[in-house]
């Protein structure tokens, strides 16, 4: 474990985030090949644990993963090196895109292309929501929460933050219920 140098952690996170479009989970297969199979810095079990933990924490998954892996390998310095290296390429790409985009506004061909792109993104999110739903909508309560969240946001303009905090309240109810059950049982 101590064999990995700070600069090789930084380099790996830089290029992995640069080649994985879309970020987050797209990084997992490349990280697995690089850190587990090639360098032997981590095991498959480590990867599974990292995925589980990063998905239960707030924040951008790509940064969560970089911090967790970086910390495992080289402590705080590793975490800092990994996190900052992981954002260099995305940062540079968007700065360029933002600069180019403002130069193209008002061009009909570009506008039409983006209409098509927005329609496709709508479809992609819908498909992903349906697939996510298979794992999440497992009980009547989860259906109620999801439908309520949808209606509140889509038709009543309720703050997304408020909906998520209400979900956290429902989660607290689960925790209390579990505690009561344990005490009785």
């Amino acid at each position: 474990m101590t064999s990995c140098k700070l600069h090789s952690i930084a380099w790996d996170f830089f290029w992995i985030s640069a080649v994985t479009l879309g970020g987050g989970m797209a990084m997992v297969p490349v990280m697995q090949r690089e850190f587990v199979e090639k360098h032997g810095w981590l095991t498959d079990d480590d990867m599974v644990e990292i995925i589980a933990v990063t998905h239960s924490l707030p924040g951008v998954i790509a940064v969560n993963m970089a911090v967790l892996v970086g910390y495992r390998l080289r402590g705080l310095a590793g975490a800092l090196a990994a996190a900052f290296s992981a954002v260099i390429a995305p940062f540079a790409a968007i700065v360029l895109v933002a600069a180019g985009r403002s130069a193209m506004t008002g061009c009909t061909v570009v506008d039409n292309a983006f209409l098509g792109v927005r329609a496709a993104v709508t479809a992609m999110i819908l498909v992903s929501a349906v697939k996510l739903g298979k794992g999440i909508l497992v009980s009547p309560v989860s259906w109620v929460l999801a439908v309520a969240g949808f209606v509140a946001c889509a038709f009543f303009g309720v703050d997304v933050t408020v909906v998520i905090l209400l979900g956290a309240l429902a989660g607290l109810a689960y925790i209390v219920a579990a505690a009561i059950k344990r005490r009785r049982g």
Partner: protein
Amino acid sequence: MSILLQLYLIFAKTAILTFGGGYAMIPLFRDEIVVKHAFMDGAEFANLVALAQVTPGPIGLNSATYVGMSQAGVPGAIAATLGVMTPAFVTTLAAAIFLSRVSKSGWLKELLRGIRPCVLGVIAAAVVFFADTSVFTSPVSSLVRDGRLGVSPAGLVIFVCALIVEWRWKPAPVWLLAGSALAGIVLGGW
């Protein structure tokens, strides 16, 4: 408050509330960027989500950088990017230090049992908002109010085709988006 500090705080706050990353971030960021601060309109945000699929890095990071850049140039982009990184950095570092306890404690799992369905509902609402910028020419919510809904034929055709392709084959996002951009140009303002 200086614009840089404001950008940092907005994105730090937004990122704290995102669990699970990916599409789960989209509705929250949209709410903050489009609805509350009006940094850009809904269509521009939908474009940005598409761009985030074909550039490195996740949508949360990309949208922070983009908004920061559009509001205050490169310093703004840096401030917003640091903001969006902060919660992930702090919470993950804490988790890494106390990892064995976090992964074994059941309470986080129970908490997420409540949060995840709500996030799903919010993502479904984002589908409606995105449809507003492409498939429809008037907001879906106005259907309830005045019973009318304008449809963009080009947007609808591309949406249905993209839905079938994505569901059936799940190609790499770059191919689907390139195809849709081409279809958008060919079908024009139809």
